[in-house]
């Protein structure tokens, strides 16, 4: 019994460390040094790359698997959301339109 509890403790401590260190170390260390221009330029593109990656996965892989309409309504609902985002640059307007488009599509397809 003691062994199992020790193992659980190790899992909790270890998981905590590997959760915190990747988040904290780069921010704490790289903010103290002057970055080479090439690296700074590279880091400048990380947000665009990551946002496109997260959006593409959220839209193209509903439930973790690739799907096309009509089995993937998100692929359609994202179009009005992107249009509103391009026009208004408003976070809340985009989310409201995206959610409403999704609700409307589910009502139509069902």
């Amino acid at each position: 019994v003691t062994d199992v509890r020790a193992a659980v403790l190790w899992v909790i401590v270890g998981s905590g460390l590997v959760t915190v260190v990747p988040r904290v170390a780069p921010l704490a260390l790289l903010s103290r040094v002057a970055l080479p221009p090439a690296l700074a330029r590279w880091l400048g593109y990380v947000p665009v790359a990551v946002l496109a990656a997260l959006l593409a996965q959220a839209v193209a892989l509903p439930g973790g698997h690739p799907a096309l309409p009509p089995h993937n309504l998100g692929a359609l609902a994202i179009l009005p959301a992107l249009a509103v985002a391009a026009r208004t640059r408003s976070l809340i307007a985009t989310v409201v339109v995206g959610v409403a488009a999704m609700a409307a599509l589910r009502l139509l397809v069902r």
Partner: protein
Amino acid sequence: LLRAPAPAVIATVFLINLRHVLYSAALAPHVRRVPAWQNALIGAELTDETFAIAAGHLRGNRQARAPWLFGLNVTAQATWVAATALGTLVGHALPDTQALGLDFALASMFAALLMMQVAGRPHARVAVAVAAIGALVAVGAALVVPSSWAVILAALFAATAGALLEGRRLAAPRRGLP
């Protein structure tokens, strides 16, 4: 979970969290004026969503104010806890959250944040190319490896392409200028 050996569990948790190295590094140039211990606290609360909002706020060479970042993180976490509590207490009263389209809020938010990122850049066409590469690699790689690794691969490929493209533009002689 308890049957798996501890090192295997910890290694898996590490790989799922690895993409935050990139988020943390990308925010670093914007927190030069924030004390190190505050940067550590700010980093500890990084998520996909808070990184996306912070990156949108800190375009260009803007320097972050620590209270803004703490406000962002605390608001996000408080909303998470409050919404979880609310869902546990009254969630069964909601008929069908899918019918309301609420599960699409996150994708819509990413769409808005991506659009703001691309639009607010000096090299907008390079940013569009980076977004396209990032999207393709993220979906393609997710068919083969776990989706959190696919995000890392997408970021590495797309950011490298962006840096190379921008570097080439900067190096190219400008026509029309003496």
